[in-house]
């Protein structure tokens, strides 16, 4: 049980973090996130007792961390740093045994129990085959597992991770985070750079900015589009990972460049064909609408994730008269309509048919249609508006094309 109560600290030149409090439940994995310079590592160092607190208190199992000896701290709290430079050729076993230092007296030697605990930690981290190798001969991912094994040999109640995986490849990152997440009975507090990993692995998140907590809670409460744009200053899409149900961030890359002209554009798409177009036009700062889309369509989720207004219907149902009237109204207020190549059948042909009612709106088509309509409805509809259709192949130039008119 660890309680962080109103702590402030810094590196001697004033406080970097101010008044931070939280107390994770036993065994919980808490992620600390925030932009560079927000005080994430400072917070971790303060909890670990590496930095002295100017205010507040950190308690582990009712022990005040600032008042107990380094040995006592080492028995309750393990730290996994981002990277450990090991100058001399110690074996993996020797390094893990160093985790037992706090338990071995100055004038005694490691006991059978110590060796047993070290062996358990080595097995848990899948290092058995490397135990006698030098730490300087193994890969970065393996070395980080050694450092985790060393922390486990301390038998800590709390494990602190300072961006423990940020310089590793994705496979090693996940391997190590899986290992850490599965440590039962150990409370984990980790600083993360990668928000997707933080969301995926942590039970709770704490968002720091300017040395203060500005949001905390479940991953989906903390990782929101609003927080990302407010504290990280990025324009990103937060969707839900369909497998883990955790928030997932997709940052948008500036593609067309802002034209300065904000247009109203309606997008007609389906089955995921419109995502790219939506993101591209959204990036250019246009005001978008989309539809009509079924709410289980991936274009619907994409539109929602960037806050585009969507005309929607329930899955497998056709739009009623009111909805069609609304579509017609939305289109008539638009400066342009973009149609994404998609499968067109009798169910969604209404989206294209409606265009013939609004005579002067330019239409841009990107991609190819797959026609499943009866009686050649698609061909007819396109024929009716053929004078104002522009067929485009290049998504990146779309925005400037539309604006250029």
């Amino acid at each position, binding site marked *: 049980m660890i309680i962080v109560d109103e702590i402030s600290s810094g590196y*001697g030149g004033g406080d970097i973090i101010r008044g931070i409090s939280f107390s994770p439940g036993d065994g919980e994995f808490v992620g600390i996130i925030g932009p560079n310079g927000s005080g994430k590592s400072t917070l971790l*160092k303060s909890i*670990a*007792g*590496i930095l002295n607190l100017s205010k507040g208190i950190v308690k582990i199992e009712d022990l005040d961390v600032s008042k107990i*000896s*380094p*040995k006592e*701290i*080492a*028995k309750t*709290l*393990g*730290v996994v*740093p981002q990277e*450990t*430079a*090991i*100058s*001399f*050729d*110690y*074996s993996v076993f*020797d*390094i893990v045994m*160093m*985790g037992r*230092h*706090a338990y*071995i007296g*100055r*004038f005694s030697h490691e006991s059978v129990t110590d060796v047993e605990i070290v062996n358990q930690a080595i097995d848990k981290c899948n290092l058995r085959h490397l135990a006698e190798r030098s730490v300087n001969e193994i890969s970065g991912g393996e070395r980080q597992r050694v450092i985790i094994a*060393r922390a486990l040999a*301390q038998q800590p109640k709390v494990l602190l991770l300072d961006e423990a995986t940020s310089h590793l490849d994705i496979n090693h990152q996940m391997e190590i985070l899986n290992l850490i997440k599965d440590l039962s009975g150990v409370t984990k507090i980790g600083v993360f750079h990668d928000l997707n990993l933080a969301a995926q692995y942590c039970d709770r998140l704490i968002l720091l900015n300017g040395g203060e907590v500005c949001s905390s809670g479940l991953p989906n409460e903390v990782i929101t589009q609003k927080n990302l744009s407010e504290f990280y200053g990025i324009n990103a899409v937060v969707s839900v990972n369909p497998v883990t149900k955790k928030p997932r961030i997709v940052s948008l890359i500036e593609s067309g460049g802002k034209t300065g002209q904000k247009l109203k554009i309606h997008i007609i798409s389906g089955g995921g064909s419109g995502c790219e177009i939506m993101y591209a036009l959204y990036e250019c700062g246009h005001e978008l609408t989309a539809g009509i889309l079924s709410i289980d369509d991936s274009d619907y989720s994409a539109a929602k994730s960037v806050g585009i207004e969507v005309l929607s219907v329930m899955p497998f149902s056709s739009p009623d008269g009111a909805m069609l009237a609304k579509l017609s109204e939305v289109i008539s207020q638009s400066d342009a309509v973009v149609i994404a190549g998609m499968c067109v059948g009798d169910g969604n042909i209404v989206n294209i048919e409606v265009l013939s009612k609004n005579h002067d709106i330019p239409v841009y088509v990107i991609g190819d249609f797959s026609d499943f309509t009866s009686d050649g409805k698609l061909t007819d509809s396109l024929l009716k508006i053929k004078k104002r259709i522009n067929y485009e192949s290049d998504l990146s130039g779309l925005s400037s094309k539309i604006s250029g008119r």
Partner: protein
Amino acid sequence: MKKKNILVILILLVISVVSIIFSIALGPTEVELSTLLSIFLNPSGADQTANLIILDIRLPRILSAFLVGCGLAVAGAVMQGLFKNSMADPYIIGTSSGGALGAAISIVIFAGAGLPFFAFIGATGATLMVYVLATKNGRAPVETLLLSGVALSMFFSAILSFLMYNAGKSLHQIVFWLMGGFWNVGWTDAFTGLIIIFASVFLLFFSRDLNILSLGEDDAGTLGVDVELLKKVLLVASSLVAGIAVAIAGAIGFIGLITPHVMRLIVGPDHRVLIPSSLFAGGLFLLWADNMTRTFFNEMPVGVITAFVGAPFFLLLLRRRMRA
């Protein structure tokens, strides 16, 4: 501790004892084995000249050389661990330049009176000064210690040069001292040298802490090492050792650098093994270097031999490491 490492230490111990005994027979004056035996078995009945040569000249010199070698190697091993750098030596934080300055002050101002004392005060005083200069808010980061050491060494060297420039006739005395040697050692020096053994045993009890410290200060702290206290202990004990070595024999180079480096290749980086094996190896190195100078090289300063042998050897190691 691995069996192989215990064996290495035992072998070094045996070679040390044998070498010390064998060295007694070495020297410009030939002493018959029977005379040697009679000196130890029946001192009053033996040849008085041989008695004087063996007991008052050779034995204290042999023991001093061995102990100074031990001290330099142990202090070197500790400094390399503390600074996480196998290129560090016992003099790295001002010990040799401080000792040299102390010796020069004694020679120039007091005509050489109390030279070992001045050298000792200079050597340990320099280390203390470096520590004080590098400390802020109770912390002395090793990088700062290293840089302060370099800066202070240069400053002391400047004063030393000034003293040498004004030394006049006693210049050659300073130069000889700087090269290092055992011309004038007696039993007092050999007994003083025993402090080196005590300090080394003391340091041995901190060898596990030193292992962990060589992973970096932050890591060591989270593993339960009181880093600042440990640094103080290590600096005090190793500068005491190096200071005594410098006071006895002057600033002899390369032993403190080479010995721990070579022993690390043989026994590995664990200081629990590295410190005792460096101790014997350093003692042996300096003992044989001194045996050579007093037997074959007409009392050339021993520092010349250690550097002459040590530097190429060191380069060889460096090349090998670059290939690896």
